[in-house]
């Protein structure tokens, strides 16, 4: 074996090095700093006497309010994911199986078009629809169907509506690729063997599209639990989620340590989900765990 060739870095490694360094600098370093800040009594850069402490985590565990905030965040994330999946799956299936190129292009444009507008603008659009003086309530009241405005905003439902609208394209685009790669002849074979179209879908297409369902759900859930603008605007500050609490701690309480601890909790929730996803994907694809 040529020892020179063995020690020489290969070209691909050198090619990856800049992006790896960038990733380390702007991803791992900030997370590491956040983890350190979460167990310190202050900022060591600007404060002379700083010690290790667990008080931020003790405070979080000791007060049921924070646990309720964590559960509210997770609940909104789960409901958003399920609704986005329910809306996104049929659309993705249609996009993946449509024969017409024009039809596919039109559907793709329909899915992508909302993403060309900023999240703030889209959320404000929902506010004009859902507020007490919004289009929905004013229309219903002018038709005499209701006498008092329906409480469509400042509720978890309002937040979920806004988040689903924003994140459905992520679900659709993830699912379309996976469903598009499923061989249609498998469904046809199932039907030739006597299965109804529904059974063929349930027993062939759906299991084969599970990796897409899991990937899309993971993406939407992670985005939904870390959303800030939509929960603030459509929740009217009456629905407290982790990102809102983190912002409050930074901007108004100037408690960077506690904000960092809350950030770590948000990160841990996301990581647990990734691990669960990995295991679930391994199980459905016949492996114990993805390597």
């Amino acid at each position, binding site marked *: 074996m040529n020892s020179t060739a063995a020690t020489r870095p290969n070209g691909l490694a050198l090619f990856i090095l800049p992006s790896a360094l960038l990733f380390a600098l702007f991803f791992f370093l900030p997370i590491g700093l956040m983890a350190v800040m979460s167990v310190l009594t202050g*900022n060591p*850069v*600007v404060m002379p006497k700083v010690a290790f402490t667990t008080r931020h985590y003790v405070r979080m565990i000791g*007060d049921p*309010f924070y646990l309720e905030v964590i559960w509210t965040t997770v609940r909104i994330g789960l409901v958003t994911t399920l609704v986005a999946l329910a809306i996104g799956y049929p659309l993705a299936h249609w996009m993946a199986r449509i024969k017409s190129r024009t039809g596919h292009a039109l559907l793709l444009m329909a899915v992508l078009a909302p993403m060309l507008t900023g999240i703030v603008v889209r959320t404000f659009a929902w506010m004009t629809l859902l*507020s*007490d*003086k919004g289009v929905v309530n004013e229309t219903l009241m002018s038709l005499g169907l209701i006498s*008092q*405005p329906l409480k469509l905003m*400042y*509720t*978890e439902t309002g937040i979920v509506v806004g988040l689903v609208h924003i994140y459905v394209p992520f679900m659709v685009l993830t699912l379309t690729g996976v469903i598009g790669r499923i061989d249609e002849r498998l469904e046809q074979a199932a039907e030739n063997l006597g299965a109804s179209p529904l059974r063929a879908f349930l027993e062939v297409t759906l299991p084969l599209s599970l990796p897409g369902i899991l990937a899309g759900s993971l993406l939407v859930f992670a985005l939904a639990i870390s959303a800030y603008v939509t929960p*603030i605007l459509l*929740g*009217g*500050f*009456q*629905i*407290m989620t982790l990102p809102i609490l983190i912002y*409050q701690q*930074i*901007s*108004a*309480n*100037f*408690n*960077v340590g506690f904000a960092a601890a809350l950030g770590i909790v948000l990160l841990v929730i996301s990581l647990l989900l990734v691990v669960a996803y990995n295991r679930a994907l391994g199980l459905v694809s016949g492996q114990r765990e993805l390597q």
Partner: protein
Amino acid sequence: MMKALGPLSRRRFLTASASLGIGTIAAPYVARADDPTLRITGWGGKWGDIMKAEIGPAFESEFKCKLQTDSAFPYLPKLQASSRSAPIYDVLHTNSNEQWAAAEMGLIEPKIDPKLVPNLADVYPYAISDKIVGVSIFTSAIGLGMRTDKGYSGVTSWKDLWDAKYNGVRGGYVIPVNSLGQAFLMMCGTLFGKGQTDLDAAYAALEKLKPIKIVDFTGAMEKMLLSGEVGMCVIHDSGIYRYDGQNQPTDFVSPSEGVLSLEQVLTITPGSKMKELANAYVNYMLRPEVQKRLAETVWYSPANKKVKLDAKYDAKLLTTPEKVSKLIQVDWKWYNERKDEIDQRVNRIFRA
């Protein structure tokens, strides 16, 4: 004898192009490198517009410097993260509650030296009272804002806000992040308890305010009031008066129990390398002509006693010792010491 230039190689071309590019980008900065830069904070909107168009350039011209304004709120976390010896700002402009928090963290100098800021001698006592760190250059009156087209009448007291007829159209603030909300909480203690510090009475009163629509900034409240989404709310006078002449069906009510003070406070950071310029800026902002121009643009009550506003503004703003005496100042030092506890409680109260 001149050395002849060699043929233009690719390396030489790239070097020359890069040098030219960097030189072009850097030229304006190099040209202004001699001008000292004063880094300040400031609001956006009408305040930001007039500061950028008139007040700021006039200061730059007179003091031969550059003003670098950060109007991207929140300022205090940025100052908190910067080095004490080289702070991100020289002059901090915020509301009083944040200035107290900054003082407690040692991020600002608690007092302005009257020898270095001569105009300090002309301000109303509230502007440099023991409830203020630095100096309050303007104040707004926090009271009640209401729609005038909904048949609401006879509103004279803070307690009118609790009237059941405002259920569904009542407006307030996210107390943990908003000065008006925090000041209002203290007022609740006065209205229904033993005084500003009676938190239990304040919490009980806030509980009875529900249903209420809450926002984080006064600008959002202004929009909700203008759209009719809110009919009665806590707001500062400037948030109503700035729409003067636009025929908006809104009005400001000064409650009989007094109006709360929303101060615009300037302080200087201890590590500033531009102390002289920073003091000059504070003094400049207290000049009668600067105060008049800003007051008549954004409807803030000037802190300088010598300012003579036009009749329209004089009639509504706090421009005499008698009017100023109606102002109720909040003990922000006391409040900030209990902020975490208060935030946890009010977050629970206003949770849907």
